[in-house]
């Protein structure tokens, strides 16, 4: 059994005031100044802690209110109203919802998993990963009690080709020159996001986080920090074809990523020569028919394939193609071809929450890259201002590497714990066993059709209520 993998987290405060859902509007004029004012009774001390941050002009009353409405409901002159904080509403977009963003902030700040009471408040189901449920069972398929550490659940995964048999030469095990697999203690790899107001310092921080977590950070080769600044073995340089031909990339890499193109083999061969110690991952964009391409890449010698969707978890080409289905098709294609274990399938794009990690793996990925979450961990609001050339409201460019690293460790620590929660509930002790386990999951389309498909007939004259 591998050594127990624990991510040590500690609270790392925000640099800016986090934006939360609530807003309080309290008229001061006409206040009766009650001796026992509802404001002083606030369980969360919102009014006592109220302050104005003049740099951001943020009034903390919007950020600290927890929406219990007691002040609204008890003020004798009804001087207090509730609103939804407009800054909150404007966070992110339809995919990166304010709820997801603020929960990511929370995890990066505290390293804790988000917990709340009173049931699930969200939609019945939704697109992509939102229309999946994982399975569990209480009696006939016993689970193990791993969440609180009473039993060990392994999240480790192997990247590379897993041999389905051992080669012997006489009595000796054949040692191969190149490493067949690289181990990662958890199925989460970091990746520098496609855009963002980050700097070299930020990348340093991400690299340190990857190193502390024992995982990897994929980054364009030209961003590769100096050796003194970050351990090179945790970096995955992303090398373009011209770069590959000029022999770029660092010599210590265990993994190198190249981009798929018509001529990817050329780059692949060039890299294999210049980086004999590294595994080469081929990144395949998630386009229509991507599974064919994945298959062909696999058959042509690549041991790691990275299926890349856009940051909303869709095909870059066609918005109706969802990464969930892309992973499933690629996985199934490999299975059908009988070469599933010869390649590692990585997925990226739209992995926003810990549940997406588990679900992507269930759909067939071995591990996933997370990109924007490691930016959001740095308080990014997904406002995309940086894309427009506007200043970053949370000045990510000024964030010190140590802070960046700790925030990302916290986030991944929380993701890891949530993965344990899900695996524990499913009774799965090893992340490698989770891959492709669609039998341990449920899909909305099938369930809904089975349960309600027959309920479409309205008899003449009947009324709906």
């Amino acid at each position: 059994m591998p050594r127990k993998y624990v991510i040590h987290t500690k609270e790392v405060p925000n640099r800016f005031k986090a934006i939360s859902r609530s807003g309080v509007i309290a008229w001061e004029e006409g206040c009766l100044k009650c001796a026992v004012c509802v404001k002083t009774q606030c369980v969360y001390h919102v009014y006592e802690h109220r302050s104005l941050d003049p740099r951001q002009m943020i009034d903390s009353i919007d950020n600290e209110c927890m929406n219990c409405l007691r002040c609204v409901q008890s003020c004798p002159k009804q001087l207090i109203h509730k609103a939804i904080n407009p800054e909150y509403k404007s966070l992110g977009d339809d995919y990166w919802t304010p709820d997801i963003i603020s929960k990511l902030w929370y995890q990066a700040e505290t390293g804790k998993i988000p917990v709340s009471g009173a049931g699930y408040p969200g939609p019945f189901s939704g697109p992509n990963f939102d229309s999946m449920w994982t399975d569990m069972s209480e009696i006939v398929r016993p689970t193990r009690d791993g969440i609180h550490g009473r039993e060990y659940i392994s999240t480790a995964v192997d990247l590379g080709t897993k041999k389905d048999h051992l080669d012997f030469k006489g009595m000796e095990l054949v040692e191969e020159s190149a490493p067949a697999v690289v181990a990662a203690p958890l199925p989460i790899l970091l990746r520098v996001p496609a855009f963002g107001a980050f700097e070299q310092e930020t990348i340093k921080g991400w690299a340190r986080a990857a190193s502390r977590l024992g995982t990897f950070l994929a980054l364009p080769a030209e961003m590769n920090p100096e050796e003194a600044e970050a351990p090179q073995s945790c970096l995955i340089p992303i090398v373009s074809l011209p770069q590959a031909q000029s022999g770029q990339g660092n010599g210590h890499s265990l993994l190198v990523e190249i981009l798929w193109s018509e001529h990817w083999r050329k780059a692949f061969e060039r890299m294999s020569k210049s980086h004999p110690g590294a595994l080469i991952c081929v990144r395949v964009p998630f386009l229509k028919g991507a599974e064919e391409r994945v298959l062909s890449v696999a058959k042509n010698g690549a041991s790691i394939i990275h299926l890349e969707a856009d940051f909303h978890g869709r095909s870059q080409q066609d918005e109706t193609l969802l990464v969930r289905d892309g992973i499933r098709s690629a996985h199934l294609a490999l299975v059908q071809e009988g070469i599933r274990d010869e390649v590692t399938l990585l997925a990226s794009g739209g992995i926003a929450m810990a549940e997406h990690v588990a679900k992507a793996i269930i759909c067939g990925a071995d591990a996933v890259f997370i990109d924007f979450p490691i930016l959001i961990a740095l308080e990014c609001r997904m406002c995309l201002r940086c894309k427009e050339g506007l200043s970053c409201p949370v000045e990510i460019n000024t964030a010190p590497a140590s802070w960046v690293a700790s925030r990302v460790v916290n986030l991944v620590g929380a993701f890891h714990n949530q993965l344990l929660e899900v695996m524990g509930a499913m009774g799965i002790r090893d992340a490698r066993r989770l891959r492709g386990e669609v039998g341990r999951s449920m899909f909305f389309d099938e369930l809904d059709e089975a349960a309600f498909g027959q309920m479409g007939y309205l008899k003449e004259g009947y009324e709906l209520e």
Partner: protein
Amino acid sequence: MDIRKRSLALFYCQNVPQSGIKQRQALEKLYGPSIKLFPLPCSGRLEPLHLLRALEEFADAAYVVTCPEGACRYFEGNLRARKRVELARKIIASIGLEEDRVGIVMNEKERQKSLADFAKELMSRVSGLRPSPVLRPRTGFEDPERKQGDKL
């Protein structure tokens, strides 16, 4: 006249037409660092201190845009904002700053203006002001040294 030569802190009620995040960013792109936009759940949330701190920290002028009179979701938020703005104007006048550095514009019931209309109107209105004597040495919007997170 280049209307971007003075900086404006613009507080606005989120119920002002076309004041979503897209429009807001478009304005920031258009006017660059000379405008800073602050959405409020209601203009009545604004306190005089918000205006003063904006003037103190980064803005040549601080204005509030509200819903039309009688159309506040919170019944009287904009009326309260008006009184608070009046107080802020008195305060800055008392130290010799032009009253017009602070002001309130209420939307009109009949012909509702958008956030962009207000931004344009106010940017041109404040362009006539002399540089704020409070912002010396002139630091612009993006100076990270300005941190005075004191209590409201």
